[in-house]
């Protein structure tokens, strides 16, 4: 019997029980759709986050922070120590002082921001693509009063209603201990380009930047939160040896984190999440597989006599097996193809529902202060692996669960099958 004839025979049998076959197919559709939707959303999220991270992180940097449990503090001029121990591998290092505070504009509106004290020139050297001015210029030898602001500080709603602009005067407010508001007046010299979601050490859209010496005076400290180190290159050996040298120089009191390591951790976390979600979805596909098995067994019993006739007409066991398997495969394939489409649709809808205005996690905060939340846009990603994997998985499940009923059908004895009422 030709394969096309086997398929068309199987198809005619399926057509006879449209509702039943339809419901079984629906089971497969749901299973596959769940897998595709979950995986494409997760992968979309991963891509979005990874691309944000890669912009916010420079892969050739190390971030040195004090180990919080030891009470050890990093000082601004510890950069000298780092440059000494990492000689050869370190091109530049920059101390970063971080505080949370407020910025007040000409209309006396305030906005909560992260105040970052940093050496503009060195910082620029590390983050040349993100610590870049969209408006104004970042001065090489800044005045103490100069302020560089992130994109969202200047244009909080991303609609041209500006909070502050270049050359406007702003007041920077910080609350010190004992509770006392320290203020000083500065001038915006530059607005940064939009950076996007996350950064670790790197420029962010919701921060303002003041010269490090100004920060030391303003915050009354020589301690810094972190020192960012730029390496000559991003290969693993350089990263490892430099990190080790720095740790040893500070007697193990500091943590040295490489951006690459963080990216790796994040990507492995995502792989785990993906596996987990995919696994849950796969369970629903298994349930669908049992559905296929169920309908095939019922179908086999109902058609016992038909099988007897086919055998009397000279059909071989193998051909009976193939006919029944084809029925399962048709259902599985149809379900898988529809399921991939449906899953893709669900992913698109879900992303739209959970994001506001096309951004994820960037909800609107209703306060009179500027909304400074960063939004990252996620769009579901359907990789060929997921696409063909889902279809293949659907097929495998249908074949696997169709195998037993098909085998039983093929083994029926012709005389007994013909006698079956």
């Amino acid at each position: 019997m030709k394969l096309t004839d086997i398929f068309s025979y199987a198809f005619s049998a399926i057509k006879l029980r449209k509702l039943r076959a339809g419901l079984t197919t629906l089971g497969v559709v749901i299973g596959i759709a769940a897998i595709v939707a979950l995986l494409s959303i997760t992968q979309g999220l991963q891509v979005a986050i990874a691309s944000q991270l890669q912009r916010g992180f420079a892969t050739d940097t190390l971030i040195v922070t004090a180990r919080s449990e030891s009470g050890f503090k990093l000082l601004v001029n510890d950069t000298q120590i780092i440059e000494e121990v990492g000689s050869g591998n370190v091109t530049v290092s920059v101390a970063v002082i971080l505080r949370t505070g407020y910025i007040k504009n000409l209309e006396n509106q305030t906005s909560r921001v992260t105040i970052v004290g940093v050496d503009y020139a060195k910082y620029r050297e590390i983050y040349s693509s993100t610590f870049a001015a969209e408006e104004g210029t970042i001065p090489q030898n800044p005045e103490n009063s100069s302020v560089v602001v992130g994109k969202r500080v200047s244009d909080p709603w991303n609609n041209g209603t500006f909070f502050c602009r270049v050359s406007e005067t702003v007041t920077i407010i910080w609350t010190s201990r004992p509770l006392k508001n320290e203020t000083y007046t500065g001038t915006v010299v530059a607005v940064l380009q939009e950076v996007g979601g996350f950064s670790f050490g790197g420029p962010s859209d919701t921060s303002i930047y003041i010269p490090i010496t100004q920060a030391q005076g303003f915050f009354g400290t020589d301690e810094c939160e972190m020192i960012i180190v730029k390496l000559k290159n991003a290969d693993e050996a350089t990263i490892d040896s430099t990190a080790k040298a720095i740790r040893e120089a500070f007697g193990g009191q500091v943590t040295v984190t490489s951006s690459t390591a963080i990216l790796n951790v994040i990507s492995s976390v995502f792989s785990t999440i993906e596996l987990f979600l995919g696994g849950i979805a796969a369970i629903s596909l298994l349930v669908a597989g049992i559905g296929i098995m169920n309908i095939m067994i019922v179908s086999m019993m109902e058609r016992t006599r038909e099988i007897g006739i086919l055998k009397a007409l000279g059909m071989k066991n193998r051909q009976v097996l193939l006919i029944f398997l084809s029925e399962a495969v048709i259902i599985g394939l149809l379900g898988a193809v529809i399921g991939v489409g449906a899953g893709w649709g669900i992913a698109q809808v879900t992303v739209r529902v959970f994001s506001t205005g096309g951004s994820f996690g960037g909800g609107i905060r209703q306060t009179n202060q500027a909304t400074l939340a960063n939004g990252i846009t996620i769009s579901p990603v359907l990789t060929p692996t997921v696409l063909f994997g889902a279809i293949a998985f659907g097929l495998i499940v249908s074949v696997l669960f169709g195998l037993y009923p098909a085998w039983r059908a093929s083994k029926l004895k012709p005389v007994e099958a013909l006698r079956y009422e």
Partner: protein
Amino acid sequence: MATIVEALNLRKVYMLGKVPVEALRGVNLKVEEGEFLSVLGPSGSGKSTLLNLIGALDKPTEGKIFIEGVDVSTLNDGQLADLRRRIGFVFQFFNLIPRFTARQNVELPMAIAGLGKEERRRRAEELLKVVGLAERMNHKPAELSGGEQQRVAIARALANNPRFLLMDEPTGNIDSKNAMEIIQLVERLNQEKGITIIMVTHDQRLASEANRTVHMLDGLIVNETANKP
């Protein structure tokens, strides 16, 4: 004339629950090519069992059955299936596939044998003409009378140019007028086309239409009569 079927001391024991039932108790039979043989007997006499064995649908418990000189009991499932392609079955209850039209039903054995679409179609139409159903070939079994359904079944049985036709009470489910027509068709096939026919029936009148009749009782052939030439 060549012997087409030969049964030697054929025994068949069924298990009915836990009770063994002896359906055949040593049957010897020879069928020659071109013959029209009827097997007559009351129900339970073992005639259907004999037919199943001749049709390679079942294997004997003891004894041997040769079809065209080949011992059926030595064949595996696949070889049995191949053998069945050269045998035409006609059943009491027609056993057509309800979702297929008459033509598709006749095409089915040819599809199983691996014939191409065009050839199948041409031959199916030809065969339906032979059995007088040229006008009804696109009807499904439910739209056909019992007599018409049995003609479709006969056309189907002839599809793969079988060595012989096996008929199990072919008129058992058909009114007498149509039954007569079926019998005439069978006789015509035998006389004009030289097709060997083995027909099982409990109808004395029908059996006498064959060249030769074997009488069965309690799993044995008890008598043999030659009918009109």
